[in-house]
């Protein structure tokens, strides 16, 4: 891991070779390159055949890049040993598409799981952190629900809470706003950013999806549409 490296860099990812990426698009030889700077919130959107759905998994090293590379703080996670991969991923908050909550655990236990499994925190400290996250995401009243008993919005809130359990510097959100109202999506984006600092959000946030609600566009630093020229939304 390189202290001076950017939080996230994509270099020459061949979109047509990604899972879901279509070689029938307008430019089958298109490659994707992007640098995400600290404190930025960057959103990449594209249709189902653009390959956008595969980008978050590339960041975490869950799938190997078919070409090019995805670097997190200068490290290509997919190339690390399995143990180091797992340890590295705990530095990154990850909300997978569809939430990925464990169905046999309550929402509270889902948020608690990474802290209990991936840290040496004392139980009191874990409970304290979980209480703060539950309050921040307004989940206290339903914290004891299993995912099947919760609404889609509550599940997504819990999944975000789980992603933020370690208070990571970099958060990767894979299709986080699908099915949510713009108001809720805006609220979750603010929680993911973790508040504001001079350079932007307290955290660096990378979001993928097929679209970005209009209400959120002024709240992100950059919106990149696959197949189109990246355009800064805000200086």
């Amino acid at each position, binding site marked *: *891991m390189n*202290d001076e490296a950017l939080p996230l860099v994509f270099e020459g990812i061949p979109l047509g070779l990604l899972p879901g990426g279509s070689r029938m698009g307008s430019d089958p030889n298109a490659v994707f390159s992007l640098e995400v700077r600290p404190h930025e919130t960057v959103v990449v959107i594209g249709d189902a055949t653009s390959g956008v759905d595969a980008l978050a*998994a590339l960041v*975490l090293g*869950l799938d190997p890049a078919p070409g090019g590379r995805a670097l997190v*703080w200068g490290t290509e996670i997919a190339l690390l040993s*399995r*143990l*180091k*991969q*797992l*340890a*590295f*991923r*705990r*530095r990154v908050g*990850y909300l*997978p*598409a*569809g*939430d*990925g*909550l*464990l*169905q*046999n655990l309550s929402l509270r236990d889902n948020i608690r*799981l*990474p*802290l*209990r*499994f*991936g*840290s*040496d*925190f004392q139980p009191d400290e874990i409970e304290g952190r979980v209480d703060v996250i539950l309050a921040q995401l307004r989940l206290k009243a339903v914290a004891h629900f299993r995912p099947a008993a919760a609404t889609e919005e509550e599940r997504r809130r819990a999944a975000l809470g*789980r*992603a933020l359990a370690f208070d990571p510097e970099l958060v990767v959100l894979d299709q986080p706003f699908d099915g949510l109202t713009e108001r809720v999506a805006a609220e979750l984006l603010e929680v993911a950013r973790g508040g504001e600092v001079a350079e932007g959000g307290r955290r660096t946030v990378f979001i993928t999806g097929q679209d970005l609600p209009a209400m959120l566009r002024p709240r992100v630093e950059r919106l990149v549409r696959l197949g189109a020229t990246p355009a800064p939304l805000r200086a």
Partner: protein
Amino acid sequence: MAALPTLPGAGRRVAVRVLLNQLRFTALQAVPLVVLLSALLSFVVIRTSYQFTGLNEFVGTLMVVTVVQLLGPLLTALAVAGRSGTAITAELATNTVLGEIRALEGMGIDPYHYLVLPRLAGSVVSVTILIILFDVVALLSGFAATYASQASGARYLTNVLTALEGRDVILTVVKGILFGTVIGLLPSYHGLRVTRGPTEIPQAVTRGTVASIALIFIITALLMLLFGA
């Protein structure tokens, strides 16, 4: 950036909790089934013995040969494979289909550490304990039948202890470990191999169960060839 963290002790504590849950489901909740099977098998063996030789103290030797050495471990393993092996495959296949395994990996939690290892350890411990329970219930059933038929309970026990060798005890434990490993690993493997969707879950359960049962029989035959029991 701080140095890369290593796998912490807290992870092991969570895995131990999953292991305890597995023991509760695989061992504790299976006790009535194993006791019932053992009692029924004992009845069959004793009844058969009675038909051919009349009920006498030698039923003790028969119980050791048929139940302790062969049928006890085999039936216990089959019962656990049918009860817990299927549950393991279905649960892990569902975890996979719902994206939970991938989410665990993405969070830096090793699914093998969190889901598979506790189930494997739970299966090994549970099957070993249940085989011993099966044998004890069978031998006690034999004693009760002998006692009820006015034959000598003391001679029954003597015959059991004479027929029972240290090797039988060791083989019982070895079978428990081997069968438990099969029931912990194969269903997990087939559960985690699911890729296409929910319709594949019952197929995975079938594959896991059939593979487990086949391997249990193969191991039984191999041990029979190697050690005569």
